């Protein structure tokens, strides 16, 4: 009962937040709506007992990715009107795609295809079940090789990004902090004796 009420509350807010993302005029509002929809879906995951994924969704997506997104939107000064030009033109296509997706999802859930995970309601885990522990146990034993490789790929991405963006262009004006700090009065100020002008 209480689960049902919570689910429908979060789900309704989620749907409206998602609509807000694509319909609000101000790109900053869009990003904030996206943040709202992320927190709502993380609440849904909590209801499902996936507490680790729920926390990660908030930490990674809301805490890091969306804040970066917000920075980019604010810094780039995106022209919202220009980006919205094709909205009505592509609306029928979007609706058609959405319709196909809804039909497909309904087919999978509604018809209870034998063998699909939706054909029966899975039993819940006991209250003291920790999925962080379970994930960690698999991640660091069975999949440790793949896990470490993924980490190496991220390292390569960092190295590559720095290699390609950090370069010394000729004629670039740069601050030299150490020189600025260690500057003395004599380096910059020259006292000139000026003879007073007389008629």
């Amino acid at each position, binding site marked *: 009962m209480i689960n049902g009420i919570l689910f429908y509350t979060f789900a309704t807010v989620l749907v409206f937040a998602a609509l807000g993302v694509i319909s609000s005029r101000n790109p900053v509002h869009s990003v904030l709506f996206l943040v709202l929809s992320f927190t709502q879906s993380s609440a849904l995951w909590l209801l499902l007992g996936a507490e680790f994924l729920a926390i990660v969704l908030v930490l990674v997506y809301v805490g890091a990715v969306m804040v970066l997104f917000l920075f980019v939107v604010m810094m780039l000064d995106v022209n919202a009107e220009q980006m919205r030009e094709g909205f009505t033109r592509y609306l029928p296509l979007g609706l058609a795609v959405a319709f196909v997706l809804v039909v497909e999802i309904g087919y999978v859930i509604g018809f209870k295809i034998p063998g699909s995970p939706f054909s029966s309601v899975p039993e819940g885990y006991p209250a003291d079940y920790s999925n962080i522990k379970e994930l960690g146990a698999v991640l660091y034993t069975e999949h440790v090789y793949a896990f470490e*490789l993924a980490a*190496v790929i991220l390292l390569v991405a960092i*190295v590559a990004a720095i*290699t390609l963006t950090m370069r010394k262009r000729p004629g670039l004006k740069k601050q030299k902090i150490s020189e600025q700090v260690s500057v003395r009065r004599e380096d910059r100020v020259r006292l000139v004796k000026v003879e007073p002008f007389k008629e």
Partner: protein
Amino acid sequence: MADLILAAPEIFLICAICVVLLTDVFLPADKTIVTYSLALLSLVGTAAMTAYFSVGETVIGFGGSFIADSAGSVLKTFAYLMVAICFLYSRDYLERAGLLRGEFFVLGLFGLLGIMVIISGHSLLTLYLGLELLSLSLYALVAFNRDSGICAEAAMKYFVLGAIASGTLLYGISFLYGVTGTVELQALGQYFREPDALSLPLLLGLTFIIVGIAFKFGAVPFHMWLPDVYQGAPTPVTLYVGSAPKIAAFALTWRVLADGLLGLHESWADMLAVLAILSLGIGSIVAIAQSNLKRMLAYSTISHVGFILMGFIAGTEDGLRASMFYTLTYVIMAAGAFGMIILLSRRGFEAENLEDFKGLNARNPWFAFVMLMIMFSMAGVPPFVGFYAKVVVLESLLATDMFWLAGSAVFFTVIGAFYYLRVVWYMYFVDPLNEESLEAATDFRVVLSVNGLALLVLGIFPGVLLNLCARVLS
């Protein structure tokens, strides 16, 4: 713990890379030579680890996602050798071009790590991760010269097309996983041993996987990126892209198709046959029209890829051996050919046009002879090793009664011989455009000479490498 010993070379290399990376950060810009030496040292160390920890028998570890076998050790050793040669050839050129930065060596080593992961990958997940590791390093390397527009264009094309190919491969893997419920090659092999294991989703998945592999190999019709990348990238990077990753592409095909999906041989053999014939045809014919040597070598790569794929089509151990032999000899030839372009290049001048090789014999008879050996070997003229590589592939095709495939391979080889011989003709029978003598460091000269002579020695004694391939694959 026992699993960690299996991956000792990989673990050593990643530690060495971190050391090289951190050392390079704290070095002043004019001391990159230290990074270079450290990178070479880590290669030597990794090779030593591979030799020391290599096991006689095949061992599968990390829950089925890693395989240590002697064929893998041989392929890895060749990969170390190719990367070391690439570094040796590159240092001089990069210094002259003002591109000598430590990241070149770091990214090169990261790429090598990806190659090693692919070579000893035994689940589709590991293979995919290795491929991404390799590709990511290659994208960054191709874009290495930031101030060159053609370089950025090549990197952009490579990146976008490569991302699509990775996606395709992953999509195919997801089909396979959906149907069989596993990504481990051993379990997949088990699955296909059962009768009527074939189904439509499986075929779809197989097709997507082959598209991904063909892209990474550069087989027609997924070859569009190759000429642009070869031409656009700085020559040392082209040398890197053209040599060691081909070993990885061979290993990927071998592990996935000829090992895990051997049960589907009938289905993928036909697809590979189409890819191989198209690659040979387009590679041999379009290369004739190229006036840029790097672009010409790109098309030559495409036709060689056709030959490598032909070895797989037979589906026999002989065919596999032929493919491995062809791959190993091809990378030696490719390294030599790009080494020659680097040798002829000077500050602000890229000797990438065919005209730049005019009259090389008058300027430097020895290196003209080295280039002659490389070109003859690529064309498949006896007694050079390229000839035997082609012969063993054709033999494996004839042994399984695929006469039309073998016939067309010979036909296109004869066409392809024209553009290799044209380079030789330019070197020996045309007057040079300038009389400048070649300037290069002694180590570079020595390694390039050895590289060229290896083609002749291996051509006279092909049995050594051939037997090695046969022994480790059986």
